[in-house]
């Protein structure tokens, strides 16, 4: 599987560390931390997810990948991906 790193270009997925769903946002206050940390949509289909290019540019990416086919439709730097 190749991850299209916006900076480095297409790279083998083994260069990356996977973290999971990029959608949950850290709550500002005390509420919602259980949801944020534990509950997941775990969709069968396209998913926005966090990949860290640990062996490359050391940036966190938001990759859109279909969990049924593993086909990737895009990737951006997480820091520039503000909802």
């Amino acid at each position, binding site marked *: 599987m190749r991850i299209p790193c916006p*900076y480095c*270009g297409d790279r083998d997925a083994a260069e990356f560390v996977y973290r999971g769903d990029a959608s949950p946002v850290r709550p500002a206050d005390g509420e919602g931390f259980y949801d944020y940390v534990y509950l997941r949509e775990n969709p069968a289909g396209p998913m926005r997810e966090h990949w860290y290019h640990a*062996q490359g540019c050391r*940036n966190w990416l938001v990759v859109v990948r279909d969990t049924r086919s593993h086909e990737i439709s895009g990737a951006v*730097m997480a820091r520039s991906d503000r909802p």
Partner: protein
Amino acid sequence: MAEALRIIQPGGLALAAVMARKGVDASTIGERLGLTPPTDPTAARNPSMTLIGTGPGTWLAVGEAGQGDWVAGLEATLAGIASVSDQSSGYVVLRFSGQGAGALLQKGAFIDLDPAAFAIGAAATTVIGHLGVILWKVDDAPSFDVALFRSYAKSFQAWIAANAGGQALPVSIA
């Protein structure tokens, strides 16, 4: 791997990680340095330094050690617009030259090193045999410079020995 391969360790290099402060773009840094840092994974050079793109707003700066404290100078020059971390000891740099250089590195790196895809000045931060490396193409001898973290040097030598078909004796890395 029939082609010739030479591996040397250029001495006296000063190395630093240069990280732009928030909102500071490459051209601003370029004005201070007199060399505009690349905004993509390539290497920019002038007589006094090479800047290798390692990520958005981050570069590996390579200069000549010895002439004063090169890294301290860089810090002073970039004060306020970029953070600098001395890596002169962090990495060892090896130069692979000759027709066999690309073929050897291709055995380890899962990126396209074909001249058409990886021209002079191209750079990549990637993996060779479980080792993280920063490699950039210097000339069309071809020569590639490979920077890797110092503690891995012995293992990298073992990888080279196993993959260079015995005909290229790697330098002992200091």
